């Protein structure tokens, strides 16, 4: 059984194409249901965000499954294969897992470290769960991705620090004033940059926002779009007296606020702090004003320096985050490999069990003379011998470091013990309680589960696997 990923993201496809194959328009659950009905896969999940559309499958034969899933994509969205194909990426097993883990950790996001994506991955999983399209492989995969995402979040500072000038200004304002709802903001100048910062502040729940511009009509136009109040330019100093936060973004060539102006504003404020964000170039506020007590003056360069520093820190954290993802991928890949051993191990056990039973049957006439208690003991002892003989080889098989070696070992075991399907085949699956008992002794719950006579819906696929393996 292989893990297969086919998808497009903001890294590979333009927005026009992403819009056309956006699963959320027709419902992710419908897509999952349609996918799960196709015979080429045994498990399916769909991750759909505005930046990516990805399909995760568990498939016995990845090549046919890939062909099929591309056909599905084109059918479902009504697009031509030639349009999508150049933008698709396709990954298998460990690399597919690494991709999902990086996505969940925010490493593949447009803004690295953004926190929403982990929630979106969780949503993708719960939709697929609700459609009952996930089995042991995708269950394990998604839970491992949540863990990777959480670890990156808590063990690195990938998501910390503002990465835009406007947000840097907002986070400074919050560090100075705490909650911003009760604060008054004055925006000086009605340009685009001032508007952006004002909107970010507005999103923090600022109720009172005043806008002043030399041209009253500009101030009024901006005031209307962001639900603020325009004040005439002549009343600017009165407005500044009320302000907690001032954003200056005019096109003036000379400073509109010199130190003496700010001193005059500060006097009646009785030490209330004033945060001035000067995002105009050339600067609107004389830097000397920033020396005044209780005045925090940040210009565009200061804010950009903060952003740059945060970006550098995030980039530095990416290496650490990728290391964490790598650890989780290794763990998942080891689990996946150990599953590859299951068909051979199952066949081997069935072979041994068949031999044991045949021998017991052959001796039946000799054993019949023994008391019932002793007969039971003989059965028990032979079963234990078989168990013990198989324990070490089973563990060794599962711990093999790579798939090639595992294939070679499987091949060897198949030949040495003639594990062809007519030999180790379905015979012992005849729900024998002794068989179930021997399975319970296994250290790996996944394998124990897959061997239980009355297993879950994934039972069928594992039985197929046993035959083909």
């Amino acid at each position: 059984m292989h893990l297969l990923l086919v998808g497009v993201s903001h890294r590979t496809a333009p927005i026009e194409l992403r819009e056309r194959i956006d699963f959320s328009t027709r419902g992710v659950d419908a897509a999952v249901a349609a996918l799960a009905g196709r015979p080429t896969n045994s498990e399916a999940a769909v991750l759909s965000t505005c930046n990516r559309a990805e399909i995760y499958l568990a498939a016995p034969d990845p090549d046919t499954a890939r062909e099929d899933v591309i056909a599905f994509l084109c059918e479902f969205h009504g697009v031509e294969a030639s349009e999508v194909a150049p933008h698709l990426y396709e990954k298998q097993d460990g690399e597919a897992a690494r991709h999902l883990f990086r996505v969940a950790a925010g490493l593949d996001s447009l803004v690295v470290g953004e926190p929403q994506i982990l929630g979106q991955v969780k949503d993708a999983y719960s939709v697929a769960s609700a459609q009952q399209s996930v089995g042991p492989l995708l269950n394990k995969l998604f839970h491992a991705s949540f863990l990777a995402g959480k670890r990156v979040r808590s063990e690195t500072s990938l998501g910390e620090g503002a990465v835009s000038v406007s947000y840097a200004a907002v986070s400074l304002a919050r560090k100075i004033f705490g909650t911003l709802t009760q604060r008054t903001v004055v925006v000086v100048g009605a340009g685009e940059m001032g508007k952006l910062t004002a909107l970010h502040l507005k999103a923090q729940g600022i109720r009172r926002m005043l806008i002043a511009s030399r041209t009253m009509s500009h101030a009024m136009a901006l005031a209307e779009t962001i639900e603020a109040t325009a004040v005439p330019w002549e009343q600017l100093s009165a407005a500044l007296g009320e302000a907690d936060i001032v954003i200056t973004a005019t096109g003036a060539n000379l400073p509109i606020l010199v130190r003496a102006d700010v001193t005059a504003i500060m006097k009646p404020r009785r030490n209330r702090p004033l945060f001035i964000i000067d995002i105009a170039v050339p600067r609107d506020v004389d830097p000397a004003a920033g020396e005044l007590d209780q005045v925090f003056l940040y210009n565009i360069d200061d804010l950009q320096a903060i952003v740059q520093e945060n970006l550098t820190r995030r980039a530095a954290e990416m290496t650490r985050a990728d290391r964490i993802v790598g650890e989780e991928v290794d763990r998942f890949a080891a689990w996946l490999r150990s599953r590859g051993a299951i068909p051979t191990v199952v066949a081997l056990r069935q072979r041994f069990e068949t031999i044991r039973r045949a021998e017991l049957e052959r001796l039946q006439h000799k054993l019949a003379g023994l008391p019932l208690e002793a007969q039971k003991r003989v059965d028990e002892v032979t079963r234990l011998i078989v168990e013990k003989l198989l324990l070490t080889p089973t563990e060794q098989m599962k711990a093999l470091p790579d798939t090639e070696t595992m294939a070679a070992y499987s091949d060897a075991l198949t030949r040495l013990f003639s594990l062809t399907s007519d030999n180790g085949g379905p015979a012992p699956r005849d729900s024998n309680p002794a068989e179930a008992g021997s399975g319970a002794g296994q250290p790996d719950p996944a394998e124990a589960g897959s061997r239980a006579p009355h297993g879950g819906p994934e039972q069928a696929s594992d039985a197929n696997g046993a035959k083909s393996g």
Partner: protein
Amino acid sequence: MNGIPLVVYAIAAGAYGVFFATGRAAVGRLASAVLAAGALAHTFLIGMQTMAIGHAPIADTTSAISTFVWLLALAYLYTEMTTEERAMGVFIVPLLVALQVIPAIRPGLERRAPILESPWFALHVSSLLFAYASFALACVIGITYVLLFKEIKAKHLGFFYKRLPSLQRLDAMNVRAVTIGWIFLTIGVGVGVIWTAQARADAVLDPRLRAMSILDPKIAVAVLSWAIYSFQLYARRAIGWSGRRAAWLSTVGFAIVLVNFVAVGYFLTKSHNF
């Protein structure tokens, strides 16, 4: 016996240090848990001492310090629970450790002098210890305020910027702690005056009671600290001295309190050595 909470507090101090340096939430929770364990051990210790001597261990300076440390630990844990801020622990808990060293190496548990067997006396000391604990918190909050203020002002957003709550919040926490402290300081000093008057009537010749005057260092410095905190609260309302100036005042105020509590208490006072 005072060594047990000392050791636990020291471990907690280390954990708070690691938490402050790394910012890992799990370490922070561990630090709080260790501190709570230390405070619990301290509670048992004080309970046992109370049973052994028949009254709360507050009559001599050494036991009073131990009780003060206990109260401060509880007050800090309470602040932590109500504000969800752990960044202050790295400043408070080392103070607990430093002060707890004194009772740990100087076991001073004695029965109180008969003259102290008055509910007024118990109220006097416990109010003041509680006031001192509040002032200690206010001082630490003030220090962190100034550190954060300097970082934002200098545009070097780093260590404290990442770890501390907002300036506004620190200021509000500071004024709350000072207000609570001031109320208890006022009660403590007032009750002290009443008790002195009563005790003088009973024991006219006691030299310590004769030394009870504004000129005694312990009393003079206590009045000085009361004046400073009163000024801080007044200046805040009247002339807008909030934020950094308030932070400085509460730092200076607690420095004076600490000198009065430890240095003056052991070496200088003639009136307060029972």
